[in-house]
């Protein structure tokens, strides 16, 4: 990325050779993204991230009076876009999930209406890692001849993602979810599918997304895509899953009153969402951070909101259980030693929190 902040500064749309050089870099990156998800480069629209890609998919296709099918566990970029649609004269059906966080494709089929324009359902959930049956949903969309968009930000680079296999017309992906830079992403738009732009201006991205390209970001996204493809081919997912399973099994064995949210559902290999009975997730995250372990409650984007995780709530967790749940995400830089250290920190910290928790002790006494 670095050369593109200084030496290679040409505007990729310019005629002169500086621009051509940068243009080449952008297009190479685009090819890498396309290769990762098995589509054509011309089907890749580069955006400022997963959120913009989700917005473009939803608002680019849906108009007042249309019906949309989504789910209760989508990322806020999709959920809030759908809520906005509802406020401007569209109907949206949010299909539910079961206790393991899985959608039933039949619920999607049953929700179809004559005026359904779009189904937007994520490939993998960002909070729990649960993988949805998107191929089944793709078939339903194809039969009904309606658009199918899937937010695959949490899946691309972690599991093989093939737009033909899924059968989607549109797919969102995000750079920072694949060890790439923040603030960059892409929307796959199948040839023949038409999205109305959200950003009007020059004819960038084949007139689908105006604006001078964030070249360093794009170059970073491209490289991240290449590295992700290599990792997938080298079966890194399996090794990642081993480490994640080790983390989970150790915590479940060492700490009483713990449960994996999404257990039993297929999941991406690096994510683990665990409920720790009787503690405040927020306090646990802070205490662990002060000891050098970075984890999160819910998604990174929700800040100080009064509602507990909508994903966990949709899976049937009571509010205090949702608030007592922590998400652990492993990355390619993590090692088995990291996992061991994490486990011991978690053991100590949860014990301390429970000791100091008036709620936990009251319940323990009354049992």
């Amino acid at each position, binding site marked *: 990325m670095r050369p593109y902040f200084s030496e290679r500064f040409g505007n990729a749309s310019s005629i002169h050779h500086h621009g051509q050089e940068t243009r080449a870099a952008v297009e190479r990156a685009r090819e890498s993204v396309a290769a990762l998800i098995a589509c054509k480069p011309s089907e890749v629209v580069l955006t400022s991230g997963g959120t913009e890609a989700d917005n473009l998919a939803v608002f680019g296709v849906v108009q007042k009076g249309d019906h949309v099918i989504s789910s209760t566990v989508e990322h806020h970029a999709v959920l809030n876009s759908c809520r906005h649609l509802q406020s401007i004269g569209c109907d949206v059906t949010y299909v539910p999930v079961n206790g393991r966080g899985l959608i039933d494709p039949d619920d999607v089929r049953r929700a179809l209406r004559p005026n359904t324009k779009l189904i937007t359902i994520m490939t993998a959930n960002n909070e729990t890692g649960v993988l949805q049956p998107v191929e089944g949903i793709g078939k339903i969309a194809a039969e009904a001849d309606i658009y199918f968009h899937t937010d695959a930000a949490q899946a691309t680079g972690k599991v093989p993602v093939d737009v033909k296999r899924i059968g989607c017309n549109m797919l969102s992906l995000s750079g920072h979810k694949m060890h790439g830079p923040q603030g960059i992403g892409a929307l796959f738009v199948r040839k023949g599918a038409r999205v109305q732009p959200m950003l009007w201006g020059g004819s960038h991205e084949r007139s689908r997304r105006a604006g001078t390209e964030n070249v360093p970001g794009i170059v970073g996204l491209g490289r991240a895509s290449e590295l992700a493809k290599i990792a997938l081919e080298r079966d890194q997912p399996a090794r990642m899953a081993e480490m994640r399973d080790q983390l989970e099994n150790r915590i479940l064995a060492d700490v009483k009153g713990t449960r994996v949210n999404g257990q039993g559902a297929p999941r991406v290999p690096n994510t683990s969402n665990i409920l720790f009975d009787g503690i405040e997730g*927020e*306090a646990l995250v802070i205490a662990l*951070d*002060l000891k050098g372990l970075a984890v999160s409650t819910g998604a990174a984007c929700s800040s*100080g909101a009064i509602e507990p995780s909508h994903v966990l709530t949709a899976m049937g967790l009571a509010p205090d259980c949702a608030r007592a749940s922590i998400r652990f995400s492993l990355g390619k830089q993590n090692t088995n030693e990291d996992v061991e250290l994490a486990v011991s920190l978690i053991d100590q910290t949860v014990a301390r929190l429970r000791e*100091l928790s*008036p709620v936990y002790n009251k319940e323990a006494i009354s049992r």
Partner: protein
Amino acid sequence: MLSHKTIAVAMSGGVDSSTVAAMLRTDGYDVIGLTMQLWNQRRLAGHPGIPEAVQGRCCSLDDVYDARRVAETLGIPYYVVNHEDRFERDVVRPFVEEYLSGRTPIPCSLCNNHLKFDQLLVVARQIGAEAVATGHYARVEFDEHRARWLLKRATDVSKDQTYFLFGLTQEQLSRTLFPLGGMTKAEVRALAKRYGLALAEKPDSQEICFVPGGDYKNFLDAYMAEQGEGLPDTAGELVTTGGEVIGEHHGIHNFTVGQRKGLGVATGSPLYVIQIKGDARQVVVGNEGELYSRTCRARRVNLISVDQLREPMKVSVKIRHKHAGAAATIEKSGADDIQISFEEPQRAVTPGQAAVFYAEDVVVGGGWIA
């Protein structure tokens, strides 16, 4: 106090708490900055009288931003912890219910009792801090002789906030620091400037944090509407102290003891609210002389400088934050109740407010005026 090595500083984004964080950091403590997210300022926005964008109010995005920037300047870890549920349950709801029962509440004391020195202390200990420090103008000391923690007035009496802190227990006081207790506001601002804190000139917030603009009536309307309950009808009669009905009112929450305006009746001489009888929905009015009481009862008393009131004690009693304090004798009159007998009759003793007892600058304790 010296045994506490890691201190959590409750940071509001204001000058006082920011300066406390800087002072403790400079003194060599491991400081963790915490802001409690207690009330969503956008929640009732749009209701009549409730502003859309609220600045300079606890928990507003601007204040959190300011606190975070100070923490970054000082190089200390900083976190926002969400306790909106508890705040609504233990501060906002009681605030509403008190007004609807004809009393005049002090939410700041409840916030101190339940959130700042209870919930926050729990969180602080959970994340490894042994004590909490705030920017309150007050002093805490351990009295070896009595083997008790004492709460004392701030040196800057004009800023003293001990009136709102009467509910603190020995356990809470043993884990609380008030580093500003011996300083004046001017000294604090000067210190903030020396520490290079950008907000040294930021104005103080004076009103109730969840009632922007200070109009509690708009708040009550908006809150009850949001709850889907609507304001209950407490309209009723305006009566004299002699029992004669002289008019009507539209809701007891519109009145507070000592109020002169808004009565809607004109007689020869000025009339004041003497008492609000919640159950009967009556507002009792009378002349100035009738506003004075010689006695008062305090309920749910918390004692600080002593563990029990074994015999009557001569103290100075504040019945309002801005009250100068009046000489009185206090005497136990029930399990948690205290009877107060003023030497001079006091004006507008208001149920819902606190009666706080002082022996010189030591807070003996306090309770809720019945």
